[in-house]
């Protein structure tokens, strides 16, 4: 037997929360891309200033938006009280060293400091992904495939923005951005299938076919096509322009994905019973879990 749906869209995290994941993801992705760029054979001494500064700006914007989101902003320092289990606390602990290292890397033009910032950025990004995964009320977030999707999205955004901010002439960085964009699409499809198998709420699954989602998907596919064209050099001297454009679109596609994931497709698990009670004349009955109903069982 089937039971009526009790899932509903979450109302507590809005665009400000989505902005936190956009800022944190893009910022850390950009810092990681900038750190990787220093390892290239053609890299000069020092570090690229603007990508690092913009990456720091994104991270700070994300933190600022989440500060505006919380109910008691003047108690924000209480966020540091629970590192034992809270990924939000751990993210908070990493924020200051991350920004400090990145700023010092620019100030001293030190590649090793930027590598350290890149490592901290990777940790910060992982914490963000785990914040979503720990949200057991929201199947679209708590699914295990959310973590690789969030990480790949951040790398695609960051490497894309890195091209936009002046690295569009580097074939290696274009290849990295393209690889990240392809990985994001592959992981997104794997994530979608995982949600279907797990019996995610209908409201969540409907968003995969929504027109806005289709437009975003088209944006990301166009970004990949532009990056591929730039990598193959089909546009000759215009290839860096294609790479920059592709990088920007890859980032925009990621922003949209997170806005939908956080604010639109985030339906609660809903309350379900496995058995009906025996009352009156009717017998009891087993109530099928959502995953079995999705497979057509009744």
């Amino acid at each position, binding site marked *: 037997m089937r039971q*009526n749906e009790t899932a509903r869209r979450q109302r507590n995290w809005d665009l400000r929360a989505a902005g936190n994941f956009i800022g944190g993801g893009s910022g850390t992705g950009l810092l990681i891309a900038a750190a990787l760029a220093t390892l290239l054979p053609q890299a000069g001494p020092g570090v690229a200033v603007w990508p690092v500064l913009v990456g720091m700006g994104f991270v700070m914007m994300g933190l600022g938006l989440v500060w505006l989101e919380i*109910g008691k902003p003047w108690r924000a320092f*209480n966020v540091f009280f*629970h590192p034992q289990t809270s990924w939000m606390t751990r993210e908070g602990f990493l924020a200051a060293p991350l920004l400090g290292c990145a700023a010092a890397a620019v100030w001293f033009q030190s590649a090793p400091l930027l590598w350290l910032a890149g490592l901290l950025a990777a940790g910060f990004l992982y914490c963000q992904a785990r914040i979503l995964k720990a949200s057991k*009320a929201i199947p679209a977030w708590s699914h295990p495939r959310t973590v690789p999707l969030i990480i790949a999205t951040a790398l695609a955004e960051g490497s894309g923005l890195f091209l936009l901010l002046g690295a569009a002439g580097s074939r290696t960085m274009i290849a990295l951005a393209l690889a990240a964009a392809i990985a994001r699409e592959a992981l997104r499809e794997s994530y979608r299938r995982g949600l279907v198998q797990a019996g995610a709420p209908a409201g969540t699954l409907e968003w995969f076919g929504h027109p806005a989602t289709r437009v975003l998907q088209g944006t990301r596919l166009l970004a990949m096509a532009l990056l591929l064209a730039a990598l193959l050099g089909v546009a000759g001297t215009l290839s860096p322009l294609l790479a920059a454009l592709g990088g920007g679109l890859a980032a925009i596609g990621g922003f949209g994905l997170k806005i939908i994931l956080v604010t639109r497709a985030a339906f609660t698990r809903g309350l379900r019973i496995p058995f*009906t*009670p025996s009352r009156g004349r009717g017998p*009891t009955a087993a109530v099928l879990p959502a995953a079995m109903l999705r497979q057509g069982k009744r």
Partner: protein
Amino acid sequence: MTRYAMVADLRRCVGCQTCTAACKESRATPPGVQFRRVLDLEVGEYPEVQRVFLPTGCQHCDEPPCLEVCPSTATRKRDDGIVTIDESLCIGCSACIMACPYDARSMVDAQAFAYGDEAMANERYRANPDRIGVAMKCDFCVDRVDAGVAKGLVPGVDPAATPMCVQSCISGALHFGDLDDPDSNVSRLLAENQSFRMHEDLGTGPGFHYLWDKGAL
């Protein structure tokens, strides 16, 4: 040890919402916020359709996912299994609301009363600026439980030491007691009936049990 738990007999619940009203009166929750709810579920398809009334709220889990994600340690679990919120610590990040698979937590951004600007007596009694912008939920009427135990009363047996929803239930569907006491009302009910807990596959170990048929499993 003590492990307080709630047992709801789904065979008895008639969906009258008296528990809901009693909770509302006792806790003076803001408009739109309800700690004890009774869902009216529809199960099956025509002509084999049943209505099931499902009392729900905070499940006071063994492994509360809300506690795990709370960055401020505002959410705590007592030794007797009751999960509480320290409103003076909570930062209102809503992470616990996203973590609770039982939809048991709420948050409001502004003080509001049931009938406009004028607060009723119970709302005046419970009014507290610390409750605005922070997470709130059922705490098994922990103030009544603690006050009752201090007087030597038994929660779930003596009305003054029992949560208001259980106290008010007209059909004897809701029960409260100590699961670690094999002779308690809740332990006996669980031993003599078939029961389930919601979303047990998530590993949260809810302290809210539902009876659905007679006989032990």
